[in-house]
């Protein structure tokens, strides 16, 4: 994973935790600075799990400091792919119905393509528990989508 890809994934993660572009960008950059301040770790691999851990802690601190920030409207770069955009808009609406943990799992697993082993390490769960909770979050999301259609 190159630096830019790491940045994008962390920024996405922080954005969905903090719901503010500025705060997410600050948290992402602070994550990198803290990561590289610990030079010993940088040579040992598993960088992404460590980066997520730092970002998670930073987001928690930020959320405690300033808990209510409205979600900004993300860019809409898919005007020419109407079907997908409509589905993604429904999904976005349904995501708000999920709890924080479910949203975090779906983001990390499906939007950031985080391996199950990394997720297990990050969330302090067994691999089996990660699979189970991800499936539950997905089912909950699908249920909310069905309810939205009705």
């Amino acid at each position, binding site marked *: 994973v190159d630096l830019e890809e790491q940045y994008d994934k962390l*920024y*996405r993660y922080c954005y969905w935790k903090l719901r503010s*572009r500025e705060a997410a960008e600050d948290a992402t950059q602070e994550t990198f600075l803290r990561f590289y301040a610990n030079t010993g770790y940088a*040579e040992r691999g598993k960088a992404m799990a460590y980066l997520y851990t730092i970002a998670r802690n930073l987001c928690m601190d930020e959320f405690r400091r300033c808990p209510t920030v409205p979600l900004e409207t993300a*860019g809409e*770069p898919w005007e020419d792919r109407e079907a*997908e955009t409509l589905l*993604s808009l429904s*999904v976005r609406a349904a995501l708000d119905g999920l709890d924080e943990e479910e949203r975090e799992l779906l983001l990390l697993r499906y*939007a950031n393509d985080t391996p199950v082993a990394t997720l297990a390490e990050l969330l302090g769960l067994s691999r089996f528990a990660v699979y189970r909770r991800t499936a539950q979050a997905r089912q909950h999301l699908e249920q909310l989508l069905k309810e939205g259609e009705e």
Partner: protein
Amino acid sequence: MTMKRAMKQALRQAFTPPEPENKRTFLRTLPSPRLSTAAFVRQQAGAVRGWVWLVSLAILAAALRLLRTADRADLWSLAAMMPFLAVTAVAECARSRTYGMDELEKATRFSLKSVVLARMAVVGLAHLMLLAFLLLLGGRVGWAVYLLVPYLLSTLLGLAATRRLRGREALYGCFGAAALVSSGAALLQFSGTAWLEQAFYGRWLAVLAAALAATAWESKQFIRQTEELTWN
């Protein structure tokens, strides 16, 4: 159970945040830590295979035994051992080629070129120190020429072989070169001419200079073959 592709795509899109504003500037100025040269060389020294050090130590032990008497006949035996010392260095530097990993290592974080250079430096310096230790201990610094000539000739032939051969054949080529030089030393010893007399010292020096230049050139070619893969 796998998620439908459209759903995955929709999730990815739904989680898309607004474009970050300062990403490029931040990444350009990010002070990412770099491994120091000394730390890198130390790391590579640790990766040198154990048998390289074992063979070197075995040759040192044998040489120390010979140096007790320190006569001319023993010098030939010492000279005949040097090619096998050289072959350990060449085999270590050509390890990636021998096992067919060179193409992969050309594109890894530490490129093959820097790894080979670091290992050449580590093993080469260790051998030079070994030679210096031997000669100082025996009080025969002048003998350095007689030992360096077979060492460099074997290195030269070994590098040439590994540049032209691949896989196990390269390793056999190295050992063949070492055996050739070693038996050459034995032939000289029994040729009936006193090659180690002072009269021939100038010729030894000339051969040493030529071997040094040829080995430097061959090393350069060898390193050039390990240049990183470049795209477009």
